[in-house]
C-alpha cells in the first residue's frame, strides 16, 4: 500500500506539492516511486528556470523507462535537490523526504486544481 501524507497537495501525474508560504516543494509520490521501480537518474531543471503548471520540468528514469515530471504549479525554481544527482535511489527509500525541486509559486489559486490526501488516495485506488 503506497503511503499518502496528510496536508500535501497531489496531481494526477503523481507529483506531490508541500506548501510553505509562497514556496512549493515538489517531488513524486510513494505510489509513483513504487510504479517506477529502481530510480537510476533524475533530470532536474536549473535554479531560476520557470516552471508552468501542467508542464514537464524534468524526468525520473528507472531502468526501463523515463517518466516526465509535471509541475503541479507555476513559478520559478529556487532550489534543486542536489543529493539526487549522486544518489537518485533516495527517491525509492523515501519519496516524500527526498523532494526534487523547490519553486516560488506565482499563482496560489492553482492549488485549487490539486487533490488533497483523501482524494489522491481514492485516485490511486481507481488506477488499479
Amino acid at each position, binding site marked *: 500500500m503506497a503511503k499518502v501524507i496528510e496536508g500535501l497537495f497531489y496531481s494526477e501525474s503523481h507529483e506531490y506539492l508541500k506548501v510553505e508560504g509562497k514556496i512549493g516543494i515538489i517531488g513524486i509520490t510513494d505510489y509513483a516511486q513504487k510504479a517506477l*521501480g*529502481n530510480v537510476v*537518474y533524475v*533530470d532536474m531543471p536549473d535554479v531560476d528556470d520557470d516552471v508552468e503548471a501542467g508542464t514537464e520540468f524534468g524526468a525520473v528514469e528507472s*531502468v526501463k523507462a523515463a517518466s516526465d515530471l509535471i509541475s503541479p504549479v507555476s513559478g520559478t525554481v529556487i532550489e534543486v535537490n542536489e543529493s539526487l*544527482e549522486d544518489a*537518485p535511489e533516495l527517491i525509492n527509500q523515501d519519496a516524500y523526504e527526498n523532494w526534487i525541486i523547490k519553486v516560488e509559486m506565482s499563482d496560489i489559486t492553482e492549488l485549487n486544481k490539486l487533490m488533497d490526501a483523501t482524494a489522491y488516495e481514492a485516485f490511486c485506488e481507481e488506477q488499479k
Partner: protein
Amino acid sequence: MEQNLDKKEKRTCLYDKHVEQGALMSPFGGFEMPIQYAGIMPEHKAVREHVGVFDVSHMGEVTVCGKDAERYVQHIFTNDITGAPVGKIYYGMMCYENGGTVDDLLVYKMGENDFFLVINASNIDKDWAWMLQHSAGFDIELQNCSEDYGQIAVQGPESEKVMETVLGIPCSELTFYTVKTVDDVIVSRSGYTGEDGFEVYATPEYIRGCWDKLIASGVQPCGLGCRDTLRFEAGLPLYGDELTEEISPIMAGLSTFVKLDKDFIGRDALLKQKTEGVAKKLVGIELADKAIPRHGYTVLKDGQPIGEVTTGYHTLSTDKSVCMALIDSQFSALGTEMEIQIRKKTFAGKVVKKQFYEKKYKK
C-alpha cells in the same frame, strides 16, 4: 482468423503462471509477456551471479526437412552451414536483396536433412511469408510450428546444475551452440544473456512442468525487462533496434555471421557494403553523466545530427550510462567525442566498444 480481428495479444502456455506469480505484464511482439517479477535489477543480478528462468515461448519455430533442406537454408541464411555436424547451431540473418535485415535467427541442425529455425516473435508472420516465397525449386517441407512449442531459457552460471538436478536433463556434455533431443524435448546450450545457459523447446505441458519445478526449487523467474538489459550489456542485437529492414548485418557490425564467399539472398548488396564501406555504422557510446540515452534519441557532432540511439541503459554491471547507436561511419572510430540529446539537454560521450560486459559462455 476471427480471433485476430480485435488484435488481442496472444498468450504463451505460461501466461496464467506469470499472472499468479504477480509479474508485471505488457505486450511484446504480439504476445502478452512478463516484463518483471522481482524487478529488473534483482533479476539481472540473479542471471549474472546465479541462475534465472525466462519464458520465451513467444519465439517462433520453423522446421525445414527434405532432400534440399541444406541448400534451401544456405539460400536464405547469411551464415554458412555447409558440412555442419548434426547437433550444431548457427546464428545469422535472413536479408533482403538490398541487404536490409528480414530477421536474425538460429539454425539448429537436427539431422542430415532436418533443420530447426528459431525466429523472433514479432517477425513470425513476415518470416514465414518470406520463407514460403523463396522455397520454389527446392525439394523441402517447410512447417511453421511456432504454436506447437513452449520454450524456456535457463540462464546463468548455475544453469547446468539446475538443468541436471531440478529438471533431470543431463546436459554437461553440450558445448555452447550445440543441441540434442531427449524424448522429443529439444535442449540447446544457448541464450541471449551473455551467460552460460540452456534453452528448452517442448510441448506446452512439458514446459509448464519444467517451470513449476524450477520455481519450486527457488530459481528466479525473469521477465523481458532484464532479458533486454542482459543482452544489451553483452552487445547482442535486438531485431527492431540494432537490426531492421534498413540496418544490414554489415552496418550492425555482424560480418562474422555473414559468409560472403557463398551465395544467398542479399549477398551481392552485402558484399558491396563490405568492400565499399557503409554510410552508417552501429557503435557503442559511453556518457560521462548518468542521464540515460534511449532508443530514438539524436546523436550530435558539433551540434549536427549524425545518428540515433538504438538501445541505451544505465548498465547494471558497470554503473555507466551507455548505448548502442547507428551513426555516420566517419565518426565511428573508438574515442571519437560526440553528444547525445536527452530531452532538453545534450550530454557528452565518446565511442567505445559496443560490448559492455564480457560474455561468459562455456566453450
